[in-house]
């Protein structure tokens, strides 16, 4: 099939970016979306032009590196799919596809479609852990955890840190990301010990780093490729409320 790509080009953080349009012919419907971009880059290089920079690594939906708006939607049109898992059979012959980097104050553009998501790491550093050193743990089965909690912890912990939730939110809130971590760790007895301080610190860090607040639009849940549920946010709010009451 033949398609038209409208892609955001921006040489670096300091320069201003703009859209460039590239027609691309003979795209196979079996290609993955990123293979289509490989194909585009190959032809750009052949024409002596600069290839489009985009982030990727595992190409199987687990590392969270990839991520871009595809025709206005984070990770493109397919539900619960990362950009790298998306296939060209989701698009039509003759279609124009617009591709942009995440737009959020806390995620500045580095080049073309690549943004800096270091703010997520900083949030994690503010409390996204259980404080235990190597060597201090007891036998794993000495902590019994109901299957229900373990399964819930798993679901929350399947967040890959891609940032689509922030990109989808009109406030650029990182609430889904944070709530997934808070809920994950709160399912375990040893995780509860720091639950209150964790939630307070992570929320404070989020505010400090320029993410917006949550106004319950649910856009994050709709676009999260890993199906992280908004019920995590409700749980976070409860934790946060209880923690604040004790202040």
């Amino acid at each position, binding site marked *: 099939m033949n398609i038209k790509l409208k892609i955001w080009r921006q040489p*670096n953080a300091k320069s201003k970016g703009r859209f460039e349009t590239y027609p691309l012919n003979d795209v*196979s419907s*079996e*290609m993955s979306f990123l*293979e289509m971009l*490989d194909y585009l880059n*190959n032809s*750009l*290089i052949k024409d002596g*032009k*600069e290839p489009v920079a985009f982030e*990727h*690594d*595992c*190409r*199987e939906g*687990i*590392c*969270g*590196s990839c991520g871009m708006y595809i025709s206005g939607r984070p990770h493109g049109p397919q539900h619960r799919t990362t950009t790298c*898992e998306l*296939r060209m059979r989701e698009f039509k012959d003759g279609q124009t596809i617009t591709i942009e980097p995440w737009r959020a104050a806390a995620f500045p553009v580095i*080049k073309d479609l*690549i943004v*800096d*998501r*270091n703010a*997520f*790491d900083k949030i*994690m*550093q503010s409390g996204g*852990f*259980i404080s*235990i*050193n*190597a*060597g201090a*743990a*007891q*036998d*794993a*089965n000495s*902590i*019994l*955890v*109901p*299957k229900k909690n*373990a*399964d819930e*912890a*798993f679901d929350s*912990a*399947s967040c*890959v*840190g891609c940032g689509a939730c922030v990109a989808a939110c009109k406030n650029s809130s990182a609430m889904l990301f944070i709530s997934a971590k808070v809920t*994950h*760790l709160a399912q*375990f007895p*040893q*995780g509860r010990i720091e639950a209150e301080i964790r939630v307070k610190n992570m929320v404070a860090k989020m505010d400090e780093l320029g993410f917006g607040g949550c106004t319950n639009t649910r856009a994050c849940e709709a676009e999260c490729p890993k199906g992280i549920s908004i019920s995590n946010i409700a749980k976070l709010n409860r934790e946060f409320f209880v923690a604040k009451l004790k202040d």
Partner: protein
Amino acid sequence: MSKLNSKIPDGPLADKWTNHKASLKLVNPANKGKLDIIVIGTGLGGSSSASTLGELGYNVKVFSYQDSPRRAHSVAAQGGINAAKNYKNDNDSIYRLFYDMLKGGDFRAREANVYRAAEVSNLVIDHYTALGVPFARDYGGTIDNRSFGGVQVSRTFYAKGQTGQQCLVGAYSALTRQIAKGTVTMYPRREMLDLVIIDGKARGIITRNLVTGEIERHSAHAVVLATGGYGTIYYMSTLALNSNASATWKAHKKGAFFANPSFVQIHPTSIPVLNSYQSKLTLMSESLRNDGRVWVPKKQGDTRKPNDIPEDERDYYLERRYPAFGNLVPRDVASRAAKERCDAGFGVGSTGLSVYLDFRDAIKKKGKKVIEENYGNLFDMYEKISGESPLETPMRIYPAGHYTMGGLWVDYNLMTTIPGLFAVGESNFSDHGANRLGASSLMQCSGDGYFILPYTITDYLASDIKTPRIKTDTPEFDAAEKEVSERVKKLLSINGNETPTSYHRRLGKIMWDYCGMVRNEEGLKKALVLIKELEDEFWKNVKVAGKAEELNQELEKAGRVMDFFELAKLLCTDALNRKESCGAHFREESQTETGEAKRDDDNFSYVAAWEYKGQGQEPELHKEELKFEYVKLQERNYK
């Protein structure tokens, strides 16, 4: 005298590590903060090393080319992580885990190292559980286990099909805690491009800042490589696309011996090549073989749809050839059997290069719901890529390059032949012999970093406490930086006609055809010629777009491909030298009458450690003889 001293401690096998630990020197807490350690890599090997060294009080600097530690390739591991807990009461033990690994590796690993890996495995599970890794659990709240890849006990801990992601998120959280405390400094988006040696010791690295292109100097009292494997040498593999060999290769060129480079595991169950643009081969976890049955049509070139082929016209070739283990034979055996059937014309799919993995009978027996619950996310992944549901139509699978048992040679202390340079995780060669058993890599990477390296590196550093902070304005750093800058300039100046990716693809094909699942002397010799020709062409005709002083992904690729050429030659040289078949290394000249791998213990019971001798020079082989005191060598038999 051999230059290799493996430093294996004396004493009975089960006491070696305990006794050795007691003999290792300590560093007092006040001195630890004055000692700098560089860790390269943030996978399970790197994250575990860096966080633990930080917890101990060292001043740690950790590097990765990804933007966040959490994205290291370990994240992609699916199936599980082993430990000898015996939670299932199926008579598992440290000894059995040790024995399974040693036998699975076809007796080409050190007894002492493998035993220790099994010994610390239980601590690893305890630690991950404490960190909040959500391992699968039973209704009573205890942790569940499953059996995995060619063993007869259930010792694999898992978190659905995301064990790597869940463990790495745990390891990453411990690392972030140290970063917040200031014991560890994280340098993301940095690529190590050279190792700096001062007075014979590893003292620093040269990196390229992947955002600005700046070439930087970093010094330390010791350097730890945790840079993963080199399976991407085949271009298409199950690894993340950016995985590469450059860090270990640069260390090799600076004097670290490279051990058993040709030991590469080809995984039997990956989604096959479906089109010519494909950039990677997605792994389908081996756990699928617990319920899936592997087959091809009995008739060559049968083009009927799989569900139209009646039972008696199907050849369940693994069950036929290996009645005792059936579909659960080790990876190398399953891979070669698939290749054999396809080469003989029985393969399926448009290319004829795939076999079926069929869940029909398991669904009949256990019900759709159970099968979906166990494998749902893998089935989704498969369906997204192929457009077919494994619940309706058998999956199509084919082997793919997956794991490299070879790596930097290390002694029992995980130190390479360069004093002060350590290697952990997949980047070293130490625990998996000629073939790795499923779920034992996550275990080894984590064991190395949490419970082995912190003790052994302390012993090394104990004699360095008087050494002040290492300066970076020395002639050694000057020279290394100059070399790196010039290489970058050279790559950008060629301005030929073909992209680095195109060269990578072509190199990968040579390696897959001649140094893949099956090897022979003629093919390997031919490969050496072809690689050299392609490498010469690369240096005349590669086109690297963009500039040095900016984010430049083409330049990154070119640098990695350049090193792959050199490593590829060493792979073939090693494969040529090892005239026996063992584990994943199958030399056609050395097989039994029934076509199984035939080891030659009299002549090849050694680790082949290669020394770099300079550009264009033949590498020198050093042999570390393997002694087996506690197990009797046997033929691996899965019939």
